[in-house]
Structures are given as structure tokens and as C-alpha cells.
């Protein structure tokens, strides 16, 4: 083997080496360890005992886990179902030819995504206050709304969804806007010449063209929503909210693993969440590929 050939063979490994080392230490090893941990009851790494599949069996009968799963699912459903159409609608508005102030509008709509989630939580904890909160004050002034309307007590989930929409609608909108700008103009023009109205052009030309981006944004929203932690943590002062209405899967995982020290049970919660996410991804894949085949 010549020196040049040897170099050509070794060079990729040298380049890949740092990544592989980091991947092995920070991804592969924790992943394998978490599978092992999920079969144990632990108090930190120093004290652990095998419980077999006991942690997973416990999950099935743990009402807090089911509450957290239900809350997370409702939040995800609410976010995705409102966020995607809303951001697509905004993208369509911004994509209109001849629209003035397009760049400032795009910046304004996108800017909340640049704010840290902790700050969003703090801002909305003030906005949603009873009696002195901005939202109740505004609604009271406009419609005589109840000043004591309990956003953060009885309506925690709508409050969380509103805060999330404020932050991420602009973010999704940018993806859709980029996709819309790449829809071939000749296709829409041809459809128009064939007599298709705006709605039919949108449904049969624009939607198929932006489907890959839409699929990606939906998947991103689902994964992001399932990982929600900071927002309810800040809004509910680290607790799960009244009747655990704001307890999400990651919050429950955090409480179990890092506050009570049972990393084993927390690992089981993490793997249950991974399974749910994988199922969502498969369902979403099937649905989207079904659409493509049609």
C-alpha cells in the first residue's frame, strides 16, 4: 500500500475520531446504560438493585405517569393542530406577491423564537396572573371578562399552548415560507390556465409541493412538544400545577430521576416516552407516505 493510499484510508478515521469518541461517550454509552438502568431501582449509581421489568410494570399502574402522558399528548395535539395551520396561513399571507413590509413582518413573527423558553415562562406567568395579569386586564377592559379568570389553575393546558404558539408559530412559518417560495411558478400558472381556482391550486399544487417540509415541521413539532419541560416548570414553580394538570412526561422523569434519585424508574419513563415518539413517527410516516402514493 502506498503512503498516499494509507493516508487516504486513515484520514477519514482521524476526521471522524473526535465525533465517534464524543458519540460513544455521550450518546451510545448513556443509551445502553439507560436500558440497563431501566431494569433497576436506584439511588444514584452507587446503590441499585435489579427489579427486572418491575419499573415498566409499575409504569402501567402509576397514575402520575398516565396523567403526565395524557397531559403531554393533549399539549402535543393542541400545539400541532393549531400551530401548523396557523403558521402555514401566515406563510401564505407573507408569500403573497406585492406584499409590502414583508421582511419586517417576517422578523416580527419570527422574533419570539429567539427568546429563551425560561423568559417566555416568566413573561407569561405575569401575563396569566389573576386580577393583575395583562391578559385578564385587557379582556376585562374590552369585554368585561372575569378579572379572576384562573388561567394557571383551571386552564393550564390552554395557557401552555397559547405561550407555545406565541413562541413557535413564527418558527414554523419560516419553514413553510421557504417551501412556498420553492413551489414552481410554472406549475401554479399551468393549473390556473387549466381553470383551477385559488383553493384547488392550493390543494392540488401547493400542498403536494410543500408536503416534505410540512412532514418535517409536523415531526419537529411532535418531538418538541413531547419534550416540553421548561415552560410548565417555570409557570408552575417546579410543580405539576393544580391537580397535576401541567405535569408533563419530561417533568415527571426529572422529578423521579433527579429529585428522588430513582434513575432506574426515570430511565423506564424515558424509554416509554421514546416508544411513544417512535410510534408517532411511524404513524406520521405511514400517513404521509399514504398521501404521496395517492
Amino acid at each position, binding site marked *: 500500500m502506498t503512503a498516499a493510499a494509507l*493516508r487516504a484510508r486513515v484520514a477519514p478515521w482521524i476526521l471522524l475520531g473526535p465525533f465517534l469518541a464524543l458519540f460513544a461517550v455521550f450518546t451510545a454509552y448513556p443509551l445502553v446504560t439507560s436500558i440497563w438502568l431501566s431494569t433497576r431501582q436506584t*439511588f*444514584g449509581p*452507587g446503590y441499585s438493585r435489579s427489579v427486572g421489568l418491575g419499573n415498566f410494570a409499575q409504569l402501567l399502574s402509576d397514575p402520575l405517569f398516565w396523567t403526565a402522558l395524557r397531559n403531554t399528548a393533549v399539549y402535543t395535539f393542541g400545539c400541532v393542530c393549531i400551530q401548523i395551520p396557523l403558521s402555514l396561513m401566515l406563510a401564505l399571507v407573507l408569500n403573497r406577491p406585492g406584499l409590502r413590509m414583508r421582511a419586517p413582518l417576517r422578523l416580527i413573527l419570527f422574533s419570539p423564537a429567539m427568546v429563551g423558553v425560561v423568559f417566555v415562562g416568566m413573561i407569561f406567568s405575569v401575563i396569566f*396572573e389573576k386580577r393583575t395579569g395583562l391578559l385578564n386586564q385587557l379582556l376585562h377592559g374590552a369585554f368585561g371578562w372575569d378579572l379572576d379568570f384562573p388561567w394557571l389553575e383551571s386552564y393550564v393546558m390552554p395557557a401552555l399552548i397559547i405561550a407555545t404558539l406565541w413562541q413557535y408559530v413564527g418558527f414554523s412559518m419560516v419553514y413553510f415560507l421557504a417551501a412556498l417560495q420553492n413551489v414552481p411558478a410554472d406549475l401554479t400558472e399551468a393549473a390556473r390556465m387549466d381553470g383551477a381556482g385559488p383553493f384547488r391550486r392550493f390543494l392540488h399544487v401547493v400542498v403536494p409541493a410543500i408536503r416534505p417540509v410540512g412532514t418535517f415541521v409536523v415531526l419537529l413539532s411532535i418531538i418538541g412538544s413531547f419534550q416540553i419541560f421548561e415552560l410548565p416548570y417555570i409557570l408552575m414553580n417546579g410543580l405539576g400545577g393544580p391537580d397535576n394538570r401541567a405535569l408533563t412526561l419530561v417533568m415527571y422523569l426529572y422529578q423521579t430521576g433527579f429529585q*428522588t*434519585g430513582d434513575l432506574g424508574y426515570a430511565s423506564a419513563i424515558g424509554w416509554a416516552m421514546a416508544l411513544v415518539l417512535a410510534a408517532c413517527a411511524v404513524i406520521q410516516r405511514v400517513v404521509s407516505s399514504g398521501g404521496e402514493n395517492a
Partner: protein
Amino acid sequence: MTTPGAMPPPHPDAHDQSRLAGPWIIGGLACLSILLTALFPVPEPEGVRLWTFARLHNDIYQPAVEEWNAAHEMQVQVSVLGIQAIEQRMLSSFLSGTPSAELLEVERRIAARAFAGPVEAVGLVDLTDRLRRDGLLEGMNATSFTPWTSRGRIFGLPHDVHPVMLGYRADIVEAAGIDVSQIETWDDFIRVLSPLMRNPDGGKRTDRFLLNLWETHMDVMEALTLQAGGGIVDQSGVPSLDHPANARVLAHAVAWGRGENRIAADAPYFNASGNRLLAEGFVIASFVPDWMCNLWRKEIPQLGGKVKLMPLPAWERGGRRTSAWGGSMLGIARDAPNTDALYEFAKHLYTSPELSRRLFQEGDIISPLRSFWNDPVYDQPDPYFSGQPRGRLFVSLAQDVPPRYNSAFSGLCLLRLQAATSRLAAYADRTGQDTPESLLPEAQRILTQAQAEMMERVSRNRFFAEDRAGTTEPGAAVPDTAEIVAAEKEAP
């Protein structure tokens, strides 16, 4: 015009050179990073470290720390860390041996998290025998030890007592000619103060309530359960959510916030909105532990001279007139070297009369040192509280502060209590039941269900169950703070 097809082919050496430049750049950067890290290491702090979560504590401790450092070889440095930073670093240290401070001043909810594993795995030094040897078990307020006790062993030196009183708008109450000395029970409180409820628009919307209490105020709810003789965990650390006293408190608290006879409202604690509502007189009375006086003075100065303190109304005549809210302690990390010297320092800090005096003067906190309770500093009138001798009022209740037991399940129990309160509130709204008597059976049912769920969780924790079985055997040579509390009560 150049087209891609017309471009000359790249020279083969140029391709090789560009491909090999990458590894050299990455390798060079890696070597540079290693060199910089080696040449400029993060300096290790000298001496012993004490982490506290309160800047005020740090300021108060400085003279005592300087005095210690001048006289001893072991030098101590106090650092202020965020409460969550201490929590995470302390737990990381206990669970996986990462470095932490030798001395840790922590709040009771955080300390409880160290009690989840086997008792020998608690990352703090067991101080029980030392405290007994030095007479501190008797010299300090007995109930102040309870949050730092797990399975009969004490893991910290208590910092405080934290009795709870009611802070009330004396200007409004006295302008109405009401004498609060008539108030002994919660029923008296409602009866005597109800003329102060205000409905400016003829009952459509009340803009003044008697009590700052809401189903989301979990610290207050817990304090009320302790006052009533309940609590979320018992002395052995086992959940006690279904205690009848807890059901009674929940039924009253939910009923007080509903119906025609509503007397309670939500002026949230620890935020600007709540402070504004207090300043506006939206609520007449609010729960005030000793440390909160300091917050009020700083954050609601406009209430100066308008408020006074009174003991909590009891749940029945002759009943307890106070409770406990909060608490912190100084513990020694188990892996720290020279624990005897660290204990001596902790004792120097927490049993210093001068520091106890400053703790009250600058932090409004009553010392757990019983011998200090006669100090004249507690008799000084406080202009903010309309000239009342605030310290003496709190000290007079200190002996009656209920034990607040702690365990790894305390946090989860508090979540369950919050959930139970919300469920009861939802039941009250759904059924229109708004009296304590009508809500009591449902409160008990909800709490019994919560208790069953918690007990299932407890039964899973084999570390806790086994240790508990071991230390509660008859004749086990461990102190029981409940016994100390009982003995203290019987003492003349």
C-alpha cells in the same frame, strides 16, 4: 463565459493537499486547547467551602467566619449559590461522588432528597451523637431538628424555628373598631372580621377578603395541616396524607374560597402581583412566618405602620396558635475530610449569640437556641409592624411550633396534596357544596385515595422500607425527635 464543462480538471496534488489540511487543523486546535487548559487551570478554592443559598445569610455569617479564620488553621470560605444550583450539585455529589462544598446550607425540601436511599447512603454526616454529646438536642428547639431527621438519625444543625403568624391590616381593622384579641379560633376570625368584607358594586364583585389563602398556596396548606395536627409525612417518613386533620383543613380551605360566605382570596406569595394586592388591601390577613417580615419590609414598604401580627387562629379552643413554614440547616458532606473540625465550625456559626442577634436584626429570623430566646433584642418595637415587639411575638410561639417531618417522599406528597386540593375544589364547583361540613367526606375520600397511591410508591422503595424496618425495632439505639418533642412538652 465559463461553463462547468469548460473548467480545467483540478490538479491531483491540490485535491490531496486540501483533504489532508483538515486533520492538521483539527489536531492543531485540539493540541492548542489541551495546552491552554494545562497552562491556565481553574484555580481551586483554598480551604473549606460553605455553600449557602441566601445572600443575607452570607452577609450575616461573615464576621463569625472571619473570627474563626483568624483563630484556626482550617480556613472557611462562604459562597452564595442559587438554591437549584446547590440542589443539583449536592445531589450529584451524593449520587456520583462529584466534588461539592464540605459544608452545605440547604432548605428542607432539598435536604429531603438526600434521604431517598439507604440510610448509610445519605451524603451528609450523621450528627446525632455529636449533638447529644454537646447538649444541643436539648439546647435547641426540638421541632427544629425534625426536617433533618431520617430514620432516627439527624443530619444537620438547624438554622431556625420559623413560627407562623397572621399579618393583618391593622389600619383597616382598627378603623372599624375591631379588637382582634377576641379571636381565638378560625370561626372567631370569620365572625369578628366579616364586617370588613367589601362589595362596592352591590355584591357582584367583592374587592376585599379576609384571608390570603387559595388552593394553589401549597406551603400555606401544608402549614395549616401541621397546625391542625396533621402533615404530609409522619415521624417515620411515611406519607400521612389521609390524616383526618388534613381532610379538615382541605375542606375548610376550599369552602372558604367559595359560595356566598366566601372569605378567602388569592394574593400570590412571592410575586409583585400579590404584593400589590396586599398593598391595596385586597386581603385583610396573610400568613407570615418570621422570615417573611423581612420580605414584606423590603418589597411592600408602603405597608409600614399599617400592619400588625397576631397568632394564627386555632382549629379549636385551646388549640395550637402557630405553625411552621420553611427551614434550613447546615450539614457536613460525608466525604469531607476532618468532619470534627467542620462540626466545630458549624457549631461556632450556629450557636453564636452574636450571630443569632444579627440573624434577627437583619433577617428577622428567630434562633433555634432556646437560651437566646430571653435576649432583649426580641423585645424591641418594630415600626413596620405598628410598634409591636415582633421578635417577642414569634418567640412566644416558638415552643409551640409543630414538628415538620421530612422524607424522600415529602415532595411527592406535597404534589398529591396539591392535586387533592384541586380535586376537592373542582368537586365543590361541580356540586355547589360550599361548607366545610359538606366537603369533609369528599376531602377524606380523595386523601385516602392519594395516600393509597403514595403507599404503593413507598412499598416500591426497598432501600427505605428495609432501613425503616431496621431502625424502628424496639430498643434500637437511635434518638427519635418525636420523643424529644413529647418530652419537651411534658417538661415544666
